[in-house]
């Protein structure tokens, strides 16, 4: 069965790899991968902020609750979270949930747990004196958090967020399992049709993922240096 590598299969399907069935059908391929990652990243940032702030709340019950949520989510494989969403979302929404949204919700829930750790660390990295100073000027603790601590903390968190975004891009590959036509799914479709080029196809998409992820990893490192420098 060894026939040497033949990459023509990539070029004949290159449009499909990049945009899927778009514009005649749904968007797919690399474009969908990026779309899923960007949307879930924004949502999980918000989710992470909530969970993270819950985790440093003075209220014991809230703190307790956030720990519980964190432990459950972080204890589950992402694949399991996707299956749960796949199973529960339509039930909660009364049917007809787009699979892309199933995956976005799963990724959001999953990544929020990790984002919250970043938020927590970022906020805790700001000297307590700052909060105390803010409080002494008569600000409410929440105001101190929103106007004084968070903006500074956020800057420290940026590199970690970018890293999380890279994980997110890699994680979108699991959307394949519920039939969302992102890059990995598109690749298996082409592989299923052409049958004898798995090496070329999977190597090609590995390289594509690598290029995208490496670009963001480098960005994160650059940011880390730059932001640390100014401090």
């Amino acid at each position, binding site marked *: 069965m060894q026939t040497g590598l033949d990459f023509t299969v990539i070029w004949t399907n290159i449009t499909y790899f990049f945009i899927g069935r778009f514009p005649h059908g749904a968007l797919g391929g690399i474009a969908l991968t990026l779309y899923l990652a960007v949307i879930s990243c924004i949502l999980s940032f918000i989710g992470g902020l909530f969970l993270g702030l819950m985790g440093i709340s003075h209220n014991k019950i809230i703190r307790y609750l956030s720990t519980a949520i964190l432990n459950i989510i972080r204890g589950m494989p992402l694949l399991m979270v996707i299956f749960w969403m796949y*199973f529960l979302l339509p039930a909660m929404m009364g049917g007809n949930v787009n699979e892309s949204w199933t995956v976005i919700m799963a990724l959001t829930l999953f990544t929020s747990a990790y984002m919250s750790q970043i938020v927590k660390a970022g906020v805790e990295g700001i000297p307590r004196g700052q909060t105390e100073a803010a409080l002494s000027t008569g600000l409410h603790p929440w105001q101190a958090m929103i106007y004084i601590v968070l903006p500074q903390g956020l800057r420290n968190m940026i590199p970690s967020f970018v890293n999380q975004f890279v994980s997110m*891009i890699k994680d979108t*590959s699991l959307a394949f399992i519920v039939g969302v036509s992102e890059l*990995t799914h598109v*690749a298996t479709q082409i592989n299923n049709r052409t049958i004898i080029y798995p090496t070329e*196809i999977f190597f090609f998409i590995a390289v594509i993922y*690598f290029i995208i*992820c490496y670009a963001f*990893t480098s960005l994160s490192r650059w940011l880390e240096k730059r932001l640390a420098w100014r401090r």
Partner: protein
Amino acid sequence: MLKYQFDWSVVTSGKYFEWLLSGLYTTIQLSLVAIVFSFLLGLVIAMMRMSNAKPVRWFAHGYLEFFRNTPLLVQIFFWYFGSYKILPTVINDWLNKTNFEFGAAVIALTIYTSAFIAEDIRSGVRSIPKEQLEAARSSGFSYVRSMQYIILPQAVRITIPPLINQFLNLTKNSSLAMTIGVMELTYQARQVESYTFKGFEAFTAATLVYVVLSIIITLMVTYYDKVVLSPMKAR
């Protein structure tokens, strides 16, 4: 409309319970094998990454970047379906006689995780003061020996919590092996769903197992952090 009827007996006894149990067994087996290999490989890569020889260092760097920045799922597909073209026929034939889906999952998990482990070890080593290595070298140890006896044992101790987290990730990531037909826990949960249509029960059972496993390990790390590491740092 269809009413969902709960039937927990599906997952607590009988044939399907046995499926889940055997799935758990495979998950543990797969994870343990991959943990051992990925730790060893991660150690090697970390040392190569810190080597003085430029080509070695560059190779390790490329390895780390490539495998950390590619989805595990794609790597699993690559090893299982794609590797046959780049391997000699003899090896392919031999692999095919074995449980290659299990083997491919071990290879993918090992390589993927080793890249993360190597980075954790490296930052562990960096936290050991440079003078220690210099002192070891000047007292006649070779680079490898001073790493082996002086630096690594300390670094590993510091690295244990992040390492265990990586092992935990690996265990969770092993669920992806279901895509190539390894009958681990997630695979079996799905299998139970498609035979009985009791997805809710099957997923709950599998989720509980994963969560309990992870909570136990997290508690162990916290304990280790408090009891072993903190006094060490305070010293």
